[in-house]
Each structure stands twice: as C-alpha cells, then as structure tokens.
C-alpha cells in the first residue's frame, strides 16, 4: 500500500488503541483481580469472579438472554428477508423511498423510541413481559437485518438469474438455488448485527421488561452502577465476549458454506 495512504490510517489506529484495545485489557485485568475495598491500587489475582458466575441464577439469566436474542434474530430474519427481497425487486426510485423509511427511525434516539413502545405496549397490556422485550428489540434491530440482505441481493448479477432460468429453473427454483445461497453473506451479516446487540442489550429489557427484569446486559450494568463490583462485572463481560466470539466463528463458517466468503470483518 502507498505510504501516504497508509498514514491516513494512524488516527483510526490511535482511536482503536485508546477506545477499544486498552479498555479491553482493563476489563480483562479487572476480571482476574480483586482489589482491597479501601485502596484500589492494592490487588491480588483471582479466578473467583468466574467461579461466582457459574451459579444457577446467573446461568439462568444468561440462557434467558441468549434465548431472547435468538428469538429476536430469527423473527428479524423471517420478517426482514422478504422485506429485503421486495425492496430489491421494486423500481430504483421506489427503492430509495422504502430504504429511507427503514433508516428514518434511526435518526431518533433509541431510548426515545423505546419509551414510545412503553406507551404503546402499556395500552395493549403486554408491557413487562418477554414478548414486549422481543418486540422492542425487533423494532430497533430489524434495519440491521434488512440492509445487509438487501445489499447482498442487489449485488447478485442479474445474468445469474437469467442463466438459472435458461437452464430450466422456474422463478421459485431460481430463488432457492441461486438467489438465496448468494444472499447468504448478507444473511450472516444481518444475523450477527442483530444477535450481538440483542444478547447484550440492557436498556430495552429494562424499559419494556420492567425494573425487576434482568438479562445479562442488566446484570453487567448492575455490577458497575449499583453494586460497584467492577471485577465481577468485568468477568461477566469477558464470558459474554467469549460466547459471542464462538457464535460468530460458527456463523462465519456456515456463511462460507453458503455464499462466497462471509461479510464479517475479520
């Protein structure tokens, strides 16, 4: 790569170092140490925070979080794929309007939108249930499913669909054998982009699930803000991170089997 072009990367590299790499090591450091309550500078190494996590109540919270995130992701995919397909099929000028409608709500703060859902769901009587949390998450995260799938579908060369028809495929067969497999990179990206924020979300479950509603994100938040137990909070964060890394690896593999190379950036 050209040297001058390379130098444009430095600001971003510095940003990454300060905002991502250093905090990451701090979290990891907190998760394996225990400081004296009176003087935080004196600490000892320990794995007790990890041991503490593997208590039934915490595992229950984790599995409930994963379950709700999976439900959200699956529903986003089922709703989002046809939407992306229809958008990609419409005329170019109509396409832009529909895409704008998808993106428009994102211009409003997520918390405000979730407060609005609090009012709406309060009237229907399902506020403070799992369903309310899932509805709120789908509403917030579905653009992250639709947009990558839409992009993947529009990138498919039209002549590939013609080739499938030419070789004897009707439109349903052409979709199943060509369009869907080739849109897999978009599907994988969409799943990751929805699953990640869904599994670690804490604002939506608190607002739509109620004050006593605890998902893994709320558990972490509680350690930092309420209980001032940064070490245990860090340990849960690390565990969640490992879980996400494993599932992303898995997704990337299945994406490669489907399309050509996943769209996950690594």
């Amino acid at each position, binding site marked *: 790569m050209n040297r001058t072009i390379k130098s444009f990367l430095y600001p971003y590299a510095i940003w990454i170092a300060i905002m991502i790499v250093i905090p990451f090591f701090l979290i990891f450091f907190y998760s394996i140490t225990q400081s004296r309550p009176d003087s935080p500078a004196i600490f000892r190494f320990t794995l007790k925070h990890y041991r503490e996590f593997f208590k039934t109540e915490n595992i229950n919270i984790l599995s409930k979080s994963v379950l709700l995130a999976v439900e959200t992701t699956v529903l986003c995919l089922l709703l989002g794929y046809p939407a992306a397909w229809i958008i990609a099929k419409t005329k170019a000028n109509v396409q832009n309007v529909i895409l704008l409608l998808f993106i428009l709500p994102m211009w409003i703060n997520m918390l405000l939108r979730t407060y609005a859902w609090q009012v709406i769901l309060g009237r229907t009587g399902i506020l403070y249930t799992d369903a309310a949390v899932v509805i709120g998450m789908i509403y917030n995260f579905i653009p992250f499913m639709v947009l990558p799938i839409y992009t993947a579908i529009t990138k498919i*060369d039209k*002549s*590939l669909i*013609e*080739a*499938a*028809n*030419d*070789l*004897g*495929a*009707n439109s349903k*067969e052409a979709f199943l*054998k*060509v369009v869907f*497999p*080739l849109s*897999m990179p978009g599907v994988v990206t969409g799943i990751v982009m929805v699953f990640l924020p869904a599994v670690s979300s804490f604002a939506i479950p608190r607002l739509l699930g109620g004050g006593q509603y605890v998902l893994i994100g709320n558990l972490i938040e509680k350690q930092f803000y309420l209980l001032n137990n940064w070490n245990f909070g860090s340990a849960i964060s690390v565990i969640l991170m490992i879980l996400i890394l494993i599932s992303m690896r898995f997704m990337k593999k299945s994406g490669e089997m*489907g*399309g*050509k190379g996943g769209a996950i950036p690594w």
Partner: protein
Amino acid sequence: METSEIKSTSYTVNKIKSYNQGSVKSNKPLIEIINLSKEFDGEIVLKEINLTIKENEFLTLLGPSGCGKTTILRILAGFVSPTNGDILFEGKSILNLPPNKRQVNTVFQRYALFPHLNVFENIAFGLRLKKKKDDEIVAKVKQMLRLVKLEGFESRNVNSLSGGQQQRVAIARALVNEPKVLLLDEPLAALDLKLRQEMQYELKEMQRETGITFIYVTHDQEEALTMSDTIVVMNSGLIQQVGTPIDIYNEPKNRFVANFIGESNIIPGQMVADYKVRFENQIFDCVDRGFHPNEPIDVVIRPEDLLIVDKDSAPLVGVVDSVIFKGVHYEICVIVNGREYVIHTTKSARIGDVVGLTVEPENIHVMEVEGVGNE
C-alpha cells in the same frame, strides 16, 4: 492446469488439418424469425427481421455494437419479448414460452457461472433441475468435461479458473442439457487473442461433434469468417446480407458489408455492358452481369487482389505513398488519380516509386450503389 492447456493446443493443431472439409447439413428449417421488431422506450432496435435458421447450422450474427444482434439472441432465449413479429421453432410459435421451457441454452458473454457452486455443480445445474438420477448426472458431467477438456476440474471453485476455463465450463453447462440450439453471446470477447483463436476451432469442432445448431453473436469479422456456415451481417437493426463466409467476403452486397468484413478498396464506376466495367477511365473485364448499360455501380477490390506490376503494361498507374510492414505482408498505399488504393503484397516497394496496378477479372466485385451517401 498447465498440462491441460498444452494438451488443448496440440489438439487444436490436429484439428486445423481436418478443418474446412465441410460437413453434411440438413436443410430443414429449425427456427423461423418472421417480421421481428423490437423497440426499447421508443427506440427501434430491430426492424422487421426475417431469417430462417437450419438444423445443424453454425450461424453467426455479425455487426457493430448496437446493431441489434444481441437483442435477437435474447428474444430467442426468452429474456426479451419482441414488439412485433413471431418466432417459430419447428413450426410452432415459442413467444409465449418462458426461458425455462425453451429448448435452447445460452452461453453468456461474461459466463454467468454460479459462484457458489463448483465446476461439477455448475455443469450439473440443469440436470439436477430435471431431477435426473445421480449416476446419470455424474456420467453426463464427466462426458462434458471431456468434451471441453476440463477433466479433473470437478471440485474446483469456478472463481479460481482462468477466463478460458470459465468459458469452457459455461459451454459445458449449456451443452449438457442437449439443447436443440445453443446461443452464444460474444463468448470469446474477454479472452486474449491466442486463446480466442484456439477456442474458435474448438467451438466449431464441438458444434460438428454434437450436431447442435449454434447461433453465435460477435462483432469480430475474423471470428465470423472462421467458424460460420452462415453469416448474417447486421447494422442498425436491419439485416444487410446473409450468406456463406465466402459469399460475404467476395460478394459484399453494399458498402457497409464491404467495409465491415475485411479491408476493401471501393471505387465508383459504371457497368458498360455485361462483363465490362469502367472505373478510373479504364474498361476492365469482370464476371458480373445483369446491370443496365452505363448503370453507376461501386467496385470492390480486396487489398490482396491488387497486383503491383510494371507501369508500362498496367491499366492503373500511381505513386507509392506509404509502405508498412505487417509481418506476413506489406501494406502499400498507392495514389492513382488522387484516389488511395490499399494493397497487401509480399513484395516491398519504395515510397515515391511510380508503379502499375492490375487486378484479375474475377477479383473485381461489382455492387449496386445505395441511394445516398456515395462519393
């Protein structure tokens, strides 16, 4: 990969020897194109095209880009419907059939191979749709891979193949369905010169082996002359001339065809009588007849048919204006009466020399003058 390309080269050399020996053609019409017209947003792309395509024929639609040749191909494949006219396939109209129900297959210009499938699955695509048995699919795909000389490439990713190999997969993917007609849309345009020439012979050979009618679209006149049984020269949505490569080359019907197929010297003249033509104020013997006495005509002389001779005995005398070495021949420009003549000859000449030019009667081609735009 390396070995397969070497193999295919030696194969080509062997085939060139047996090339041009001709083959038996049936005269049964397979496709009849009747009064076919197409407009895109008010712009006329095809104007009342009439064309009959015979069984086992290698037919080339030749013309500059935008002449409508690809549109004819896409109408035949079913991707585009015509504004007017009809297409009969074995006597029956196919305009209402969707592409997947037509007995034609297409080799696309940029191959359009399925990137998520390997070579085997790309070729097997059509057979799998027809729900053929696995062992039959394996046998047929293997046979196709042999035909296109890609044995052992079954599990290769199509993106890892070279342009020429992708081209072969595209041909195999179409031919494995045993179509009545194979449509080829400038399939060699993306290949380099040497590979293109090699593939020309191989395509012709495949056509002969399989007995399938090939309809080939190209803007490359050399490609058309090399491979075709019949050439259809097109320009601005109209058929200019239909004929064998030799007819088209030797007896171009008009200036467009004469200029598009190879280089030519086009000289205005008059038909004095049958077998007598006058141009450059000289009377020449020729082999054309049937014109009105003194009818104005255009004379076409190919550069290789003009002979440089001694100036004292020659009908035409001129001055050498330029000499360019072209490898096999020299391209020499001679100015006669202010008109430039291009000559291809193996003998060189010096710039400024006064030379004589002559031409054999059978190499003088007379064509009717078009209404407007004459010199």
